[in-house]
Protein backbone atom coordinates (compact mmCIF):
# COMPACT_ATOMS: atom_id res chain seq x y z
CA UNK A 1 0.00 0.00 0.00
CA UNK A 2 1.16 3.54 -0.69
CA UNK A 3 1.89 6.03 2.04
CA UNK A 4 -1.26 7.94 1.22
CA UNK A 5 -3.28 4.76 1.63
CA UNK A 6 -1.78 4.21 5.05
CA UNK A 7 -2.52 7.83 5.90
CA UNK A 8 -6.12 7.39 4.79
CA UNK A 9 -6.53 4.30 6.97
CA UNK A 10 -5.04 6.02 10.01
CA UNK A 11 -7.28 9.05 9.37
CA UNK A 12 -10.30 6.78 9.21
CA UNK A 13 -9.40 5.24 12.56
CA UNK A 14 -8.85 8.73 14.00
CA UNK A 15 -12.22 9.87 12.68
CA UNK A 16 -13.98 7.13 14.64
CA UNK A 17 -11.91 7.89 17.73
CA UNK A 18 -12.80 11.58 17.49
CA UNK A 19 -16.46 10.73 16.95
CA UNK A 20 -16.42 8.48 20.04
CA UNK A 21 -14.98 11.19 22.27
CA UNK A 22 -17.30 13.84 20.79
CA UNK A 23 -20.35 11.65 21.46
CA UNK A 24 -19.08 11.23 25.03
CA UNK A 25 -18.65 14.99 25.41
CA UNK A 26 -22.27 15.62 24.42
CA UNK A 27 -23.58 12.92 26.76
CA UNK A 28 -24.52 10.28 24.20
CA UNK A 29 -22.12 7.81 25.82
CA UNK A 30 -22.48 7.25 29.55
CA UNK A 31 -18.97 6.16 30.47
CA UNK A 32 -15.77 5.98 28.48
CA UNK A 33 -13.99 2.69 28.11
CA UNK A 34 -10.85 3.66 29.97
CA UNK A 35 -9.03 0.97 31.90
CA UNK A 36 -5.64 2.36 32.82
CA UNK A 37 -5.96 6.13 32.95
CA UNK A 38 -8.24 9.07 33.84
CA UNK A 39 -10.06 9.74 30.57
CA UNK A 40 -13.10 11.19 32.32
CA UNK A 41 -11.04 13.76 34.18
CA UNK A 42 -9.28 14.86 31.00
CA UNK A 43 -12.37 14.85 28.80
CA UNK A 44 -14.38 16.84 31.32
CA UNK A 45 -11.69 19.36 32.22
CA UNK A 46 -11.96 22.94 31.06
CA UNK A 47 -9.20 22.16 28.56
CA UNK A 48 -11.51 19.81 26.70
CA UNK A 49 -12.89 22.83 24.82
CA UNK A 50 -11.05 24.93 22.24
CA UNK A 51 -12.67 28.06 20.80
CA UNK A 52 -16.02 26.91 22.14
CA UNK A 53 -15.86 23.54 20.39
CA UNK A 54 -14.89 20.24 22.08
CA UNK A 55 -11.28 19.29 21.35
CA UNK A 56 -12.60 15.86 20.35
CA UNK A 57 -14.72 17.49 17.61
CA UNK A 58 -11.65 19.42 16.38
CA UNK A 59 -9.82 16.10 16.25
CA UNK A 60 -12.64 14.41 14.33
CA UNK A 61 -12.71 17.31 11.84
CA UNK A 62 -8.93 17.11 11.43
CA UNK A 63 -9.07 13.39 10.67
CA UNK A 64 -12.02 13.89 8.30
CA UNK A 65 -10.06 16.52 6.37
CA UNK A 66 -6.99 14.27 6.28
CA UNK A 67 -9.14 11.40 5.02
CA UNK A 68 -10.60 13.51 2.19
CA UNK A 69 -7.17 14.82 1.17
CA UNK A 70 -5.42 11.46 1.26
CA UNK A 71 -8.20 9.70 -0.64
CA UNK A 72 -8.05 12.53 -3.21
CA UNK A 73 -4.28 12.03 -3.29
CA UNK A 74 -4.81 8.41 -4.25
CA UNK A 75 -6.61 9.43 -7.43
CA UNK A 76 -4.63 9.60 -10.66
CA UNK A 77 -5.26 13.32 -11.01
CA UNK A 78 -3.43 14.18 -7.78
CA UNK A 79 -1.15 11.17 -7.53
CA UNK A 80 1.97 13.19 -8.33
CA UNK A 81 0.87 16.47 -6.79
CA UNK A 82 3.69 17.99 -4.78
CA UNK A 83 1.34 20.72 -3.58
CA UNK A 84 -0.95 18.14 -1.99
CA UNK A 85 2.03 16.50 -0.30
CA UNK A 86 3.09 19.86 1.09
CA UNK A 87 -0.43 20.56 2.36
CA UNK A 88 -0.41 17.17 4.11
CA UNK A 89 2.95 17.91 5.73
CA UNK A 90 1.80 21.31 6.96
CA UNK A 91 -1.53 19.99 8.26
CA UNK A 92 0.04 17.08 10.12
CA UNK A 93 2.79 19.34 11.51
CA UNK A 94 0.07 21.59 12.92
CA UNK A 95 -1.61 18.45 14.29
CA UNK A 96 1.60 17.37 16.01
CA UNK A 97 2.06 20.79 17.62
CA UNK A 98 -1.57 20.93 18.80
CA UNK A 99 -1.34 17.39 20.18
CA UNK A 100 1.93 18.20 21.96
CA UNK A 101 0.21 21.16 23.61
CA UNK A 102 -2.71 18.96 24.72
CA UNK A 103 -0.37 16.29 26.07
CA UNK A 104 1.62 18.86 28.00
CA UNK A 105 -1.64 20.05 29.57
CA UNK A 106 -2.37 16.47 30.62
CA UNK A 107 1.09 16.15 32.13
CA UNK A 108 1.52 19.49 33.87
CA UNK A 109 -1.92 21.05 34.40
CA UNK A 110 -4.60 18.37 34.56
CA UNK A 111 -2.24 15.77 36.05
CA UNK A 112 -4.14 12.95 34.37
CA UNK A 113 -3.75 10.94 31.19
CA UNK A 114 -6.34 9.79 28.72
CA UNK A 115 -5.41 6.67 26.79
CA UNK A 116 -7.59 7.71 23.85
CA UNK A 117 -5.75 11.03 23.65
CA UNK A 118 -2.40 9.23 23.70
CA UNK A 119 -3.66 6.91 20.94
CA UNK A 120 -4.64 9.94 18.89
CA UNK A 121 -1.25 11.56 19.53
CA UNK A 122 0.46 8.44 18.19
CA UNK A 123 -1.71 8.48 15.08
CA UNK A 124 -1.04 12.17 14.41
CA UNK A 125 2.70 11.58 14.76
CA UNK A 126 2.53 8.63 12.35
CA UNK A 127 0.56 10.76 9.89
CA UNK A 128 3.24 13.44 10.10
CA UNK A 129 6.04 10.94 9.40
CA UNK A 130 4.14 9.40 6.48
CA UNK A 131 3.38 12.87 5.08
CA UNK A 132 7.08 13.75 5.26
CA UNK A 133 8.07 10.55 3.44
CA UNK A 134 5.34 11.10 0.87
CA UNK A 135 6.55 14.66 0.24
CA UNK A 136 10.14 13.48 -0.17
CA UNK A 137 9.05 10.77 -2.57
CA UNK A 138 7.09 13.24 -4.70
CA UNK A 139 10.05 15.62 -4.82
CA UNK A 140 12.43 12.86 -5.83
CA UNK A 141 9.97 11.74 -8.48
CA UNK A 142 9.77 15.22 -9.97
CA UNK A 143 13.53 15.76 -9.78
CA UNK A 144 14.14 12.49 -11.57
CA UNK A 145 11.61 13.40 -14.25
CA UNK A 146 13.64 16.54 -15.06
CA UNK A 147 16.88 14.60 -15.04
CA UNK A 148 15.47 12.00 -17.42
CA UNK A 149 13.90 14.27 -19.98
CA UNK A 150 15.75 17.48 -20.49
CA UNK A 151 18.01 20.00 -18.89
CA UNK A 152 16.60 23.38 -17.89
CA UNK A 153 15.14 25.04 -20.92
CA UNK A 154 15.21 28.76 -21.57
CA UNK A 155 11.95 30.58 -21.03
Amino acid at each position, binding site marked *: *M*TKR*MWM*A*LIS*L*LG*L*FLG*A*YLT*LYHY*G*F*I*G*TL*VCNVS*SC*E*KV*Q*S*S*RWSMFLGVPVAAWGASFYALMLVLTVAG*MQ*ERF*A*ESLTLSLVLVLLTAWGVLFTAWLNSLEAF*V*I*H*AWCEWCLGSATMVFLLFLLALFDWRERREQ*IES*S*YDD*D*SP*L*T*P*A
Partner: protein
Amino acid sequence: MPNKRPEPPRKRQGGVVKATKKTSSSTRAFYIVAGAIVVLGIAALSWASTRPKGTDVASRIDTTLPPVQSSGYVIGSPSARLEVTEFGDFECPQCGRFATLTEPDVRTRLVNTGVIRYRFIDYPLPMHANTWNASRAAACADLQGKFWEMHDAIFANQDRWNGEATSSPDKVLKSVGAQIPGINKDQLDQCIDTKQTQAKIQAHYQLAMARKVEATPTFVFGDKQVEGFLSYDDFKAMTDSMLAKAPAAPADTSAKIDAKPGVTLPVKKGE
Protein backbone atom coordinates in the same frame (compact mmCIF):
# COMPACT_ATOMS: atom_id res chain seq x y z
CA MET B 1 16.85 35.82 -19.23
CA PRO B 2 16.27 33.50 -16.28
CA ASN B 3 15.78 29.84 -16.83
CA LYS B 4 12.49 28.31 -15.79
CA ARG B 5 11.68 24.75 -14.99
CA PRO B 6 8.87 23.45 -17.09
CA GLU B 7 6.03 21.31 -15.71
CA PRO B 8 6.89 17.60 -15.65
CA PRO B 9 6.45 16.19 -19.14
CA ARG B 10 3.05 14.70 -19.88
CA LYS B 11 4.55 11.39 -20.88
CA ARG B 12 5.19 10.84 -17.18
CA GLN B 13 1.46 10.17 -16.95
CA GLY B 14 2.25 6.81 -18.47
CA GLY B 15 4.31 6.05 -15.40
CA VAL B 16 1.30 6.79 -13.24
CA VAL B 17 -0.85 4.39 -15.17
CA LYS B 18 1.81 1.73 -14.88
CA ALA B 19 2.12 2.34 -11.16
CA THR B 20 -1.64 2.13 -10.78
CA LYS B 21 -1.67 -1.24 -12.45
CA LYS B 22 1.19 -2.37 -10.27
CA THR B 23 -0.62 -1.27 -7.14
CA SER B 24 -4.07 -2.52 -8.05
CA SER B 25 -3.75 -5.33 -5.52
CA SER B 26 -2.71 -2.89 -2.81
CA THR B 27 -5.67 -0.67 -3.75
CA ARG B 28 -7.93 -3.65 -3.26
CA ALA B 29 -6.29 -4.34 0.10
CA PHE B 30 -6.79 -0.69 1.03
CA TYR B 31 -10.51 -0.79 0.32
CA ILE B 32 -10.92 -4.07 2.20
CA VAL B 33 -9.14 -2.71 5.30
CA ALA B 34 -11.00 0.62 5.04
CA GLY B 35 -14.31 -1.23 4.77
CA ALA B 36 -13.46 -3.32 7.81
CA ILE B 37 -12.59 -0.20 9.80
CA VAL B 38 -15.87 1.47 8.82
CA VAL B 39 -17.95 -1.57 9.77
CA LEU B 40 -16.13 -2.13 13.06
CA GLY B 41 -16.11 1.59 13.85
CA ILE B 42 -19.85 1.98 13.34
CA ALA B 43 -20.51 -1.18 15.36
CA ALA B 44 -18.27 0.06 18.20
CA LEU B 45 -19.92 3.50 18.27
CA SER B 46 -23.38 1.94 18.26
CA TRP B 47 -22.41 -0.36 21.12
CA ALA B 48 -20.83 2.47 23.12
CA SER B 49 -23.73 4.85 22.68
CA THR B 50 -26.29 2.33 23.86
CA ARG B 51 -24.24 0.50 26.50
CA PRO B 52 -24.90 2.41 29.72
CA LYS B 53 -28.46 3.45 29.10
CA GLY B 54 -31.79 1.85 29.78
CA THR B 55 -32.84 -0.87 32.14
CA ASP B 56 -31.54 -3.63 29.86
CA VAL B 57 -27.94 -2.62 30.44
CA ALA B 58 -28.22 -1.39 34.02
CA SER B 59 -26.68 -3.85 36.40
CA ARG B 60 -28.80 -5.64 38.94
CA ILE B 61 -27.91 -4.93 42.55
CA ASP B 62 -26.77 -7.68 44.85
CA THR B 63 -29.58 -7.89 47.40
CA THR B 64 -27.23 -8.99 50.16
CA LEU B 65 -25.48 -5.60 50.12
CA PRO B 66 -26.23 -3.18 52.98
CA PRO B 67 -29.22 -0.90 52.41
CA VAL B 68 -28.83 2.84 51.92
CA GLN B 69 -31.87 3.83 53.90
CA SER B 70 -29.95 5.44 56.73
CA SER B 71 -27.34 7.58 54.97
CA GLY B 72 -26.90 10.62 52.84
CA TYR B 73 -29.09 13.63 52.20
CA VAL B 74 -32.63 13.30 50.94
CA ILE B 75 -35.12 15.54 49.17
CA GLY B 76 -38.64 14.67 48.12
CA SER B 77 -41.71 13.16 49.57
CA PRO B 78 -41.34 10.22 51.98
CA SER B 79 -44.31 8.66 50.18
CA ALA B 80 -42.82 8.88 46.69
CA ARG B 81 -43.06 5.51 44.94
CA LEU B 82 -39.42 5.41 43.94
CA GLU B 83 -36.22 6.48 45.64
CA VAL B 84 -33.21 7.28 43.46
CA THR B 85 -29.79 7.36 45.10
CA GLU B 86 -26.74 9.04 43.69
CA PHE B 87 -23.27 8.07 44.85
CA GLY B 88 -21.43 11.23 43.93
CA ASP B 89 -18.07 12.90 44.21
CA PHE B 90 -18.08 16.69 44.41
CA GLU B 91 -14.86 16.94 42.37
CA CYS B 92 -15.92 14.45 39.70
CA PRO B 93 -16.54 16.36 36.45
CA GLN B 94 -19.38 14.11 35.32
CA CYS B 95 -21.10 14.56 38.70
CA GLY B 96 -20.73 18.31 38.13
CA ARG B 97 -22.27 18.02 34.67
CA PHE B 98 -25.16 16.03 36.07
CA ALA B 99 -25.70 18.47 38.96
CA THR B 100 -25.74 21.52 36.71
CA LEU B 101 -27.37 20.18 33.54
CA THR B 102 -29.73 17.37 34.54
CA GLU B 103 -30.50 17.71 38.23
CA PRO B 104 -32.49 20.98 37.99
CA ASP B 105 -34.96 19.22 35.67
CA VAL B 106 -35.00 16.11 37.87
CA ARG B 107 -35.95 18.22 40.87
CA THR B 108 -38.56 20.28 39.06
CA ARG B 109 -40.25 17.47 37.17
CA LEU B 110 -39.74 14.40 39.31
CA VAL B 111 -38.88 15.35 42.89
CA ASN B 112 -41.11 18.37 43.35
CA THR B 113 -44.04 16.56 41.77
CA GLY B 114 -43.69 13.66 44.19
CA VAL B 115 -42.73 11.08 41.58
CA ILE B 116 -39.39 10.24 43.18
CA ARG B 117 -37.41 10.87 46.33
CA TYR B 118 -33.74 11.70 45.73
CA ARG B 119 -30.79 10.75 47.93
CA PHE B 120 -27.19 11.91 47.61
CA ILE B 121 -24.37 9.96 49.24
CA ASP B 122 -20.77 11.15 49.16
CA TYR B 123 -18.23 8.89 47.51
CA PRO B 124 -15.05 10.97 47.55
CA LEU B 125 -12.68 9.21 45.15
CA PRO B 126 -8.98 9.07 46.06
CA MET B 127 -7.93 10.54 42.70
CA HIS B 128 -9.51 13.89 43.57
CA ALA B 129 -7.34 16.01 45.84
CA ASN B 130 -9.98 18.37 47.27
CA THR B 131 -13.14 16.29 47.22
CA TRP B 132 -13.04 15.44 50.92
CA ASN B 133 -12.93 19.15 51.74
CA ALA B 134 -16.04 19.68 49.60
CA SER B 135 -17.91 16.77 51.18
CA ARG B 136 -17.07 18.04 54.68
CA ALA B 137 -18.17 21.57 53.76
CA ALA B 138 -21.48 20.29 52.35
CA ALA B 139 -22.04 18.26 55.52
CA CYS B 140 -21.30 21.39 57.56
CA ALA B 141 -23.99 23.26 55.63
CA ASP B 142 -26.33 20.36 56.32
CA LEU B 143 -25.98 21.05 60.06
CA GLN B 144 -27.75 24.32 59.30
CA GLY B 145 -30.31 22.68 56.99
CA LYS B 146 -28.55 24.05 53.91
CA PHE B 147 -27.09 20.92 52.35
CA TRP B 148 -28.78 21.17 48.94
CA GLU B 149 -28.01 24.85 48.58
CA MET B 150 -24.37 24.08 49.38
CA HIS B 151 -24.43 21.02 47.10
CA ASP B 152 -25.52 23.21 44.18
CA ALA B 153 -23.06 25.99 45.01
CA ILE B 154 -20.16 23.55 45.30
CA PHE B 155 -20.90 21.94 41.94
CA ALA B 156 -21.52 25.31 40.28
CA ASN B 157 -18.09 26.48 41.47
CA GLN B 158 -16.25 23.20 40.94
CA ASP B 159 -13.58 24.85 38.78
CA ARG B 160 -12.73 27.33 41.56
CA TRP B 161 -11.95 24.88 44.36
CA ASN B 162 -10.95 21.61 42.65
CA GLY B 163 -7.46 20.14 42.69
CA GLU B 164 -6.50 21.89 39.46
CA ALA B 165 -7.54 25.30 40.76
CA THR B 166 -6.22 25.51 44.30
CA SER B 167 -4.29 23.84 47.07
CA SER B 168 -6.39 25.73 49.68
CA PRO B 169 -9.90 24.51 48.89
CA ASP B 170 -11.39 25.30 52.31
CA LYS B 171 -10.88 29.02 51.76
CA VAL B 172 -12.80 28.92 48.48
CA LEU B 173 -15.48 26.60 49.87
CA LYS B 174 -16.06 29.01 52.77
CA SER B 175 -16.55 31.90 50.38
CA VAL B 176 -18.88 29.77 48.25
CA GLY B 177 -20.89 28.83 51.35
CA ALA B 178 -21.01 32.42 52.56
CA GLN B 179 -23.09 33.35 49.51
CA ILE B 180 -25.95 31.05 50.57
CA PRO B 181 -28.86 33.11 51.92
CA GLY B 182 -29.53 32.56 55.61
CA ILE B 183 -26.39 30.60 56.39
CA ASN B 184 -24.44 31.31 59.55
CA LYS B 185 -20.99 31.98 58.13
CA ASP B 186 -19.07 31.78 61.42
CA GLN B 187 -20.65 28.46 62.25
CA LEU B 188 -19.89 27.14 58.78
CA ASP B 189 -16.26 28.31 58.90
CA GLN B 190 -15.71 26.78 62.30
CA CYS B 191 -17.21 23.47 61.20
CA ILE B 192 -15.00 23.40 58.10
CA ASP B 193 -11.86 24.34 60.08
CA THR B 194 -12.42 21.67 62.73
CA LYS B 195 -13.35 18.97 60.20
CA GLN B 196 -16.36 18.32 62.38
CA THR B 197 -18.12 16.26 59.72
CA GLN B 198 -15.22 14.01 58.77
CA ALA B 199 -16.72 10.92 60.42
CA LYS B 200 -19.97 11.34 58.51
CA ILE B 201 -18.17 11.47 55.17
CA GLN B 202 -16.07 8.51 56.20
CA ALA B 203 -19.28 6.57 56.88
CA HIS B 204 -20.66 7.49 53.45
CA TYR B 205 -17.40 6.43 51.83
CA GLN B 206 -17.46 3.10 53.65
CA LEU B 207 -21.06 2.55 52.58
CA ALA B 208 -20.20 3.15 48.94
CA MET B 209 -17.24 0.79 49.24
CA ALA B 210 -19.39 -1.86 50.91
CA ARG B 211 -21.92 -1.59 48.10
CA LYS B 212 -19.10 -2.02 45.58
CA VAL B 213 -19.77 1.27 43.85
CA GLU B 214 -17.02 1.55 41.26
CA ALA B 215 -17.49 4.97 39.68
CA THR B 216 -19.12 8.33 40.17
CA PRO B 217 -21.78 9.25 39.58
CA THR B 218 -23.56 5.95 40.17
CA PHE B 219 -27.34 6.10 40.26
CA VAL B 220 -29.43 3.49 42.01
CA PHE B 221 -32.98 3.09 40.76
CA GLY B 222 -34.69 0.45 42.87
CA ASP B 223 -32.79 -2.75 42.19
CA LYS B 224 -30.80 -1.41 39.25
CA GLN B 225 -27.80 0.84 39.08
CA VAL B 226 -26.27 2.90 36.28
CA GLU B 227 -22.84 4.50 36.11
CA GLY B 228 -21.95 7.79 34.48
CA PHE B 229 -23.64 10.99 33.40
CA LEU B 230 -27.35 10.74 32.61
CA SER B 231 -29.30 13.24 30.58
CA TYR B 232 -32.79 14.07 31.82
CA ASP B 233 -34.28 11.79 29.16
CA ASP B 234 -32.09 8.87 30.30
CA PHE B 235 -32.96 9.57 33.94
CA LYS B 236 -36.67 9.77 33.16
CA ALA B 237 -36.53 6.55 31.12
CA MET B 238 -34.93 4.72 34.04
CA THR B 239 -37.47 6.20 36.44
CA ASP B 240 -40.40 5.20 34.23
CA SER B 241 -39.16 1.67 33.77
CA MET B 242 -38.77 1.21 37.52
CA LEU B 243 -42.14 2.80 38.27
CA ALA B 244 -43.77 0.44 35.79
CA LYS B 245 -42.55 -2.46 37.93
CA ALA B 246 -43.23 -0.83 41.31
CA PRO B 247 -46.55 -1.30 43.11
CA ALA B 248 -48.92 1.67 42.91
CA ALA B 249 -48.84 3.97 45.93
CA PRO B 250 -51.87 5.72 47.40
CA ALA B 251 -52.45 9.24 46.16
CA ASP B 252 -50.48 11.74 48.22
CA THR B 253 -51.27 15.37 47.68
CA SER B 254 -48.62 16.45 50.18
CA ALA B 255 -46.03 15.16 47.75
CA LYS B 256 -46.12 18.42 45.82
CA ILE B 257 -43.27 20.39 47.26
CA ASP B 258 -42.84 24.01 46.41
CA ALA B 259 -39.18 23.99 45.60
CA LYS B 260 -37.30 25.51 42.72
CA PRO B 261 -34.27 23.99 41.04
CA GLY B 262 -31.27 24.86 43.13
CA VAL B 263 -33.34 25.83 46.18
CA THR B 264 -34.82 22.58 47.33
CA LEU B 265 -36.33 21.57 50.58
CA PRO B 266 -34.81 18.76 52.61
CA VAL B 267 -37.78 16.68 53.65
CA LYS B 268 -36.03 13.85 55.38
CA LYS B 269 -32.46 13.57 56.47
CA GLY B 270 -30.54 10.41 56.97
CA GLU B 271 -28.31 9.65 59.90
